[in-house]
């Protein structure tokens, strides 16, 4: 019964999400473009699959992983656990008390990003457009490493209490410097990957981690310090993707010494579901 209520709620919220999009598309198609949608039946079926898939996906997460993940974030950041683990590992008190928190931040950042549906979508498109040169999995792993590093650094910031803007401005400077050296064709995709990483899977777990930390660490205000993890998670993937492109370029160039590399990024990554 409870399951049914949850299912109903998930379906309603997904439909609610999609209605404005459907309204905009149908409105413009009918009133402005004045032509029927090509392959209407197929597109409508596809849209339905997307809806159904998203609803099932969220329902499953809400049932299986989110409650456990949130609870875990609370437990790992609880004062009792933190004091205990430091004593167990003979570490001095200080920022190192939070070793497990950093490990959790890294692991959860990486793993939720790998499962993020919108990142899969962008990676499929990028693979498509680049003629297969950008591997779906290569891009996803690069972005996931970026998110993992970002969230770990963001957790560290909450623990030590530095103001967020120095980190973000520092990150911007790195991005700007990297943009000067990275292959041109990867730059827009890299910038995009910052925005796609944080949606259905990552945000709920990461937000719980940030707020839990800000409540536990003495002297932090959840309202000021609890936020900002998402910002780290959207900045560091840009750096990670640019680095990945640079490394791939350097790697390919080393043997060849020419610069027809631009579009060949990491040809050695294994291929991924292609339709």
């Amino acid at each position, binding site marked *: 019964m409870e399951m049914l209520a949850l299912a109903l709620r998930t379906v309603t919220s997904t439909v*609610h*999400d999609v209605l*404005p*999009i459907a*309204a*905009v598309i149908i409105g*413009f198609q009918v009133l402005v*473009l004045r032509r029927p949608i090509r392959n209407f039946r*197929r*597109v409508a079926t*596809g849209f339905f*699959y*997307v809806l159904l*898939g*998203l609803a*099932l*996906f969220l*329902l*499953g*997460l809400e049932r*299986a*992983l989110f409650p*456990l*993940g949130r609870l875990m974030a609370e*437990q*790992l950041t609880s004062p009792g656990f933190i004091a205990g683990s430091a004593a167990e590992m003979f570490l001095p008190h200080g920022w190192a008390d939070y070793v*497990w928190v950093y490990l959790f931040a890294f*692991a959860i950042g990486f*793993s*939720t990003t*790998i499962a993020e*549906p*919108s990142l899969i*979508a*962008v990676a*499929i*498109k990028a693979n498509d*457009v680049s003629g297969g040169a950008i591997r779906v999995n290569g891009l996803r792993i690069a972005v996931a490493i970026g998110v993992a590093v970002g969230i770990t650094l963001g957790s560290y910031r909450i623990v030590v209490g530095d103001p967020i*803007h120095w980190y*973000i*401005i520092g990150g*911007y400077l790195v*991005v*700007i410097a990297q943009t000067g050296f990275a292959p041109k*064709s990867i*730059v*827009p*995709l890299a*910038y*995009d990957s*910052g*925005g796609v990483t*944080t*949606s259905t899977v990552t*945000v709920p777990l990461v937000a719980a981690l940030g707020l839990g930390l800000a409540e536990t660490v003495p002297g932090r205000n959840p*309202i*000021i310090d609890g936020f*900002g993890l*998402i910002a780290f998670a959207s900045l560091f993937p840009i750096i990670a993707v640019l680095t990945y492109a640079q490394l791939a370029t350097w790697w390919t160039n080393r043997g060849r010494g020419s610069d027809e590399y631009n579009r060949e990024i990491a040809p050695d990554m294994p291929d991924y*579901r292609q339709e």
Partner: protein
Amino acid sequence: MKGLLSLLRAMLGSLRDLAPIILVIAFFQLVVLHRPLPDVGGLLTGLMFTVLGLTFFIHGLNMGLFPLGESMANDFANKGSLGWLLVFAFALGFGTTVAEPALIAVCGEAAHAAANAGFIEDTASARQQYMTGLRITVALSVGLAIVIGVFRILKGWPVHYMIMGGYVLVVIMTAFAPDEIIGIAYDSGGVTTSTITVPLVTALGVGLASSIRGRDPLVDGFGLIAFASLTPMIFVMAYGMIV
């Protein structure tokens, strides 16, 4: 039979995508926190839903959302009306953001922060008003972002100068915005783009870049999401300074 086989293969792929989360949660639960897994049956059904859901989503993406975004981009390019294309871009950005649940949650938190800091009265109605204002502001900023992004694709301007300009603006605004709003403003950039908007907007950008001669889909087609995650930061800080 063949269909069933490919469905199974796709589901295996989805399971592989989810495996890291499962491993991380199991490891921390069993090894670090020394706690048993609660309700294993419920976990497994939930997991099955997740795997099925991801499989359907990806299937529908290739069948529905991508072709739709591209065919609309194509139609707009053929119609040749810049005005309508930009109106469409704005409507898509605004419409998809204003109802985004993650954004509503963040705006609620921001209203709390503002009330705590004493910018607004700590009453339900004042908070509600602040929250609605912020939501509309962010939705406007995303609409504007898609418009700028589409315009850039048409003109073929390089994306990095514009994004860097945005960064400079963010840095300048950070110096003047109240401390309580900065964390929320930075976060708002990440939460505005939902799982359905991203594929659609990406397909639109790539479709436009492919329909216009002289544009490269990889160089010119991507970048819309980047704008949509940058402008909310600027607008939220501006909102925090003005209200």
